[in-house]
């Protein structure tokens, strides 16, 4: 694959087809921490959003270290995944923790994908998290890996 548009399309399709992602965060402790989240991505692939109760370990980790990684894949837990499944690893940083519902557009994007989470999102104990994506690593055909860089890694957002 040499075509940027094609790569963008494949990633966008994968993100659209999946409701859940694995999020990896890191606290001051030694271990990375993985959790399952309901996410949504913007069409331009620049942002990924999700929501979480503020009392969670992942929220605490993000407050400590905004750098995160996500894994989104379409595996079906069958042998055919080895030739058929795609997975994308995302690197990015949390650019904003929205506690006052000011990010209306992103919130409505999120709710159009997860309408059943409306009450959850509106709860005062929930934080709406906006990740600015640096890069995607799409794995297909078992071992083929293509990178799509959205932001330069030096442009780490101030947080």
């Amino acid at each position, binding site marked *: 694959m*040499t075509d940027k548009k094609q790569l963008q399309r494949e990633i966008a399709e994968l993100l659209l087809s999946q409701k859940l992602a694995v999020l990896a965060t890191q606290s001051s402790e030694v271990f990375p921490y993985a959790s399952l989240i309901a996410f949504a991505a913007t069409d331009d692939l620049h942002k990924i959003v999700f929501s979480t109760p503020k009392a969670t370990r992942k929220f605490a980790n993000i407050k400590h270290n905004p750098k995160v990684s996500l894994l989104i894949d379409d595996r079906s837990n069958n042998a*055919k995944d080895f030739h*058929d499944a795609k997975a994308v690893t995302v690197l990015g940083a949390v650019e904003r923790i929205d506690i006052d519902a000011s990010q209306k557009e992103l919130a409505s994007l999120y709710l159009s994908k997860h309408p059943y989470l409306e009450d959850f999102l509106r709860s005062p104990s929930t934080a709406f998290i906006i990740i600015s994506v640096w890069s995607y690593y799409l794995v297909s*055909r*078992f071992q083929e890996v*293509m*990178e799509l*860089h959205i932001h330069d890694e030096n442009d780490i957002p101030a947080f």
Partner: protein
Amino acid sequence: MRTTYLLSEISQDSKIFGGKATALMRLQEAGFRLPATLCISTEAYKQFISGSSIKEKIQLELHRKKFSDMRWEEIWDAALRIRNLFLRQRMQVELAREISNALEKNFAGNSLVVRSSAPEEDAAATSFAGLHESFVNIRGTEPILEHVKLVWASLWSDRALLYRQELDLDFAKSSMAVVVQELVAGEVSGVTFSINPTDATEGVVEAVYGLNQGLVDGAVEPDRWIFHRKEASIKEHYTPQREKFMAPQGDDVILTGLPENKSLQAPLSPEEAVAIYRKAKKIENVFGKPQDVEWTKVGNDFFILQSRPVTAGQDGDKDDKRGWYLSLQRSEDNLKKLRIKIEQEHFPAMKKEAAELAKIDLRSLSDKGLAGELENRLQVKEKWTAIYWEDFIPFAHGMRLFGKLYNDTVSPEDPFEFVELLSNVPLLSKNRNKALRKIGTYVQQRPDLQHAIAAGGAGAINDAEFNRLMEGFISLYGDPFCGTYGDRTCNVSRDELVSVIMQMAGNSTTEKKSQIGKEANKAELESTFLKISKEGGKRARAEGLLDLARTSYRFRDDDNIVLGRIEEQFFRALEEGRQRLKKRHVDGAAHLTARDVLRSLVDKRYKLSGTKAKETPAKQENQHIKARQLLGQPAGPGISRGRARVIDSARDLALFKKGEVLVCDAVEPNMTFIVPLAAGVIERRGGMLIHGAIIAREYGIACVTGVPNAATLIHTGDEVTVDGYLGIVTVGQLDKTISLPGVGK
């Protein structure tokens, strides 16, 4: 669930029993004489597949890259790997027992034929002969079970894969039944078409002495009778040169010389030809459509071996290259003839032609004379390129023929182990590289000479011995830079050649070491292979094919080198023309095509057709996209790491530094001299047995071929890791603390 049936027990369901078996069943019911026949249903195939990991392994193999991106070499490679999966997978005990019991009960140790019987879904694409495999003269329960597996594997043969794209290679829809028949070794055999595929008013009878395998694979030319279809009367009889026939011998089927009395007599009398044609027409009535009937004659009786609908226009439209590809699959006999033609006619003629062209002093020619010479060289180049496709490429099939035999005999873990037996032979490019190294050693021992070269280039050297060595080299092998790409003058290339030579000196020890180990392994593999072949009574054939395959392997290099010399002569004339036009201040003279150079030389007012900018826009567009890990074929075992050098032009080649990784679209004939300097080779063109892979393997260099867009996704200077075991290229730095087997940190 039951898997093995007598013909009288099967239904007309071709999904379960396949087209061949159901057709035979109808023929038996209609009263035609058939050999004793058993049918192994698709259920057996399904049982075999479901109890193993084969299913996913095949899928992985076929999804390494988009099927449409796979070259025929890669399809063949994939098919060989899949075939080996079937060979190495043991049949489940229950299944083997059921088939064995039926075989022993019905055939009692007789010689048998094991044929494919593909289900109807496949019929549209695969109804013509030879897409799936059949095996003749197989004896003993174990060997028959092995061949049943091979028939199943042929569902995924290269031929079948090419023609099954329509099915999107859907695993769920793929299945195979098998027909096992008693071998009826008639004195005469043949094929009858109740309708001539090329003329609907005619029918055709083809007949040969012995078994009809010779006819089917093209090794024996048949007598051919053309019939008036309506009257079922003979219209014409074509008589071939009758020389050979196919006969069962031991556990094999071999091509033998025909006794003189038979070579003078047609295998069928006119009455017999009419009799078998009429039988085919009766068979047509049974099925309600024209048939292609295979038969054999014992005494006065015709046994019907199989019958299928006549298909026309197998090659499809003109852009369909599958027909050409299938024509590459030559018989052993055909390849032997081809070898003589290449060795005794083509190679000497090419060398002579290149040498004669080299004698002409291009600078002394007038513009018109040079234009004539360029035209001539263009034609010579085109002529040999055509022969390259027509004869040299098909001859490479010798390696493939041997590979199959080797895998059938030894059933190795690595389906490409057979290449070990072919490698380490005196290739032309290895000799050329040795000669380069010799000059390198000479220079290395003389610091003064090194300084002189560094200061003034190779042209200004007055060391007589050095100049003599260089001239000797060029007269023997040509200048590998000149002719590889048309963007450099051949004079400049001399300096570049010297720079490569300097790097090559002192490169010999590692090569020697790696070869000692290889030789021992090769001898051991060869002796095991020949020992098993001897036990099966097939030693002579094994030795013959091994010899053929070694020649085929060697020619894969030699033909490229010799063709390179022809191309070099063409480029010399092209360069001379460009230089003259440059002096005339013609715009973009250095990049003109041969046609433009020709016309401009003779016609000063000639308007150029316009040259295209060579720069690829793809690189700019990809500023945000980067390849991290690319998949190809593991064409040369080993793992290595180094900076990439992407070869777009001769200049890139000249800049190549020892220890870099060679990245290119295809290893061109004249590029191989750089390979010994490379840490690894990455090629867009795919295949395990292509020229670049052969050279890399000879030098024990990690090589991955068939990486789509390798030369655009990888950039010069990128750090790359070449995993020649798995066929994976990783782009970008690795943590230096990670140690890879065989790679220095």
